């Protein structure tokens, strides 16, 4: 290998060694519990959605549906990671 490529390899090797290690937004050990809590609340909110009255301006329904979808999104991703399919 030429000197220039060797130098840049050694430079990136030193950089890799000196950088702080990766830390996830959510620690991996907490993921199963988070999945359980979020999916349970998604289920509860979906049930609550089904009991809401049918208004002409569906403010409450949209709010509940959006909250349930967001919590469900996080919950499904946490579920996938906790069973071993690291997405």
């Amino acid at each position, binding site marked *: *290998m*030429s*000197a220039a*490529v*060797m130098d*840049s*390899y050694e430079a*990136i*090797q030193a*950089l*890799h*060694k*000196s*950088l*702080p*290690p*990766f*830390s*996830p*937004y*959510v*620690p*991996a050990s907490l*993921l199963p519990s988070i999945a359980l809590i979020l999916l349970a609340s*998604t289920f509860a909110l*979906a049930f609550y*959605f*089904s009991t809401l009255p*049918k208004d002409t301006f*569906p403010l409450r*329904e949209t709010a509940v*549906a*959006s909250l*349930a*979808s*967001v919590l*469900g*999104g*996080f919950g*499904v*991703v*946490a579920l*996938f*990671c906790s069973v*071993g*399919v*690291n*997405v």
Partner: protein
Amino acid sequence: MARRWWTLPLLLVSALAPSFSLAGLAFENTAIVRTIELGGSLVHVSTTYAVKALEPRQTTYQIALSKAERAKTSWLEAKVKGQTTPLELSEDESSTEHLLSVSLPKALAVNGTLNLVLETVQTHATHPFPEQAAQKEPQLLKYETDLFTISPYVTLVQRTKIKSMAPNVISYTTPHDVDSFVRDGSVTRSGGTITYGPYNDIQTDTYFVAKHQQSISVHYSFDYPVLEVETLRRTAEISHWGSNLNIEDKIHLHNAGPTLKGHFSRLEYQGQIYHRRQAPHILSDFTLHLPPGVTNAYFYDQNGNVSTSHLRTVPSVAKGSKATQYSVLELRPRYPVLGGWNYSYTIGFDTPLQDSVGYDVKNGIYVVGVPVMTNIPGTVVDNAEVKIILPEGATNIEFISPFPELSNGMSTHISYLDTAGRPAVTFTYKDLTYKHTGIIYVSYQVPVSAHLKKVMSVGAALFSLFAFAFMARRVDLNLHKK
């Protein structure tokens, strides 16, 4: 015009003189010792050049390798004897040989001496002879090489030592026509070591090579299976949500020893194990050293899971620090792999992402280090493909390989919960050995919005369900009495 009649013919003759460059006068080899350690699929050659400079301020020394030898060599390193830092090499090819120019650490004055060591690993250099062997016959291999070590400079004395691991060498060729260089015997053998030399006052120019260079071969017994990994496909998948690096190897293993003559007798095989006299060319199990902190290891082949494996894990160490211990995975293939047989399998394992990825907060750059391969002891990998799958939405991707690759490229890999697909970097290599277990570094950036892309796509799917329910509640499907 020329005064003497022989001026023009002399000019023509000198133009046809052997084409070693003027560099041929800059050094003199006081001694060359070439040590060849014979193995199965790998042969380790270490050549020591004791060099004396004849001209001042020399900074480059040239090492010559014949074309055949360079074709067999898959790893080269030159260094000063006793030191560990490798010297810079640049390669040149002429019509007859390969020249390696080694940059000396400091310029040599006239009559300055230096000991240089060129270490190489040769692959596919041995072949089984006889090509077929029955189940309980020994494994015999043959290795061929050139008798004289070529060099652009004059060599005062050179010798070649060929060492076999087992002491029984079946036969070796005796060189012919070397009496002009030899003072004592031209070849001697002691146990498993055969010494060709010492040969004095050699100048390996084209005339010499044509007249005296000859091929020598050693027929020896080898006590371990000769293994070749025909194809290795390694996939490294990085998950930021799961904080996990998954490495999966799909391996096609081939036993390149003598092919089995007759049929495989399970009774004889079990008998050999019981009496602990296993034939050398049968592979029954092997051990891999995996990184510390390995979890969720799996080993399966086309039939399904292979349960004959044992994993001993070791707690993980911080990123970049040297691991003192490795996780040990002992694998036993589903069937013993005899000469000429193949076995294909997949192994994989997870390692925590913090052991491999570093994060630069200021620039938002992640740097990941993925090893090229996990070495199976004593094997050569014919073709390897390493694919590193980065998280979805990774941008500014830069990569570097520890040694030159055959090709590299980017592609898109689609996996679970992906919308646009994940960028993947692929490297292909050829003829890898235990010296090629370096680390590939890839740097990339992932914005926070790309991290949330998966969550939002699942959320959008759930919201569409809610929207459907919203519509369905307002549709009246009851049957009314008219």
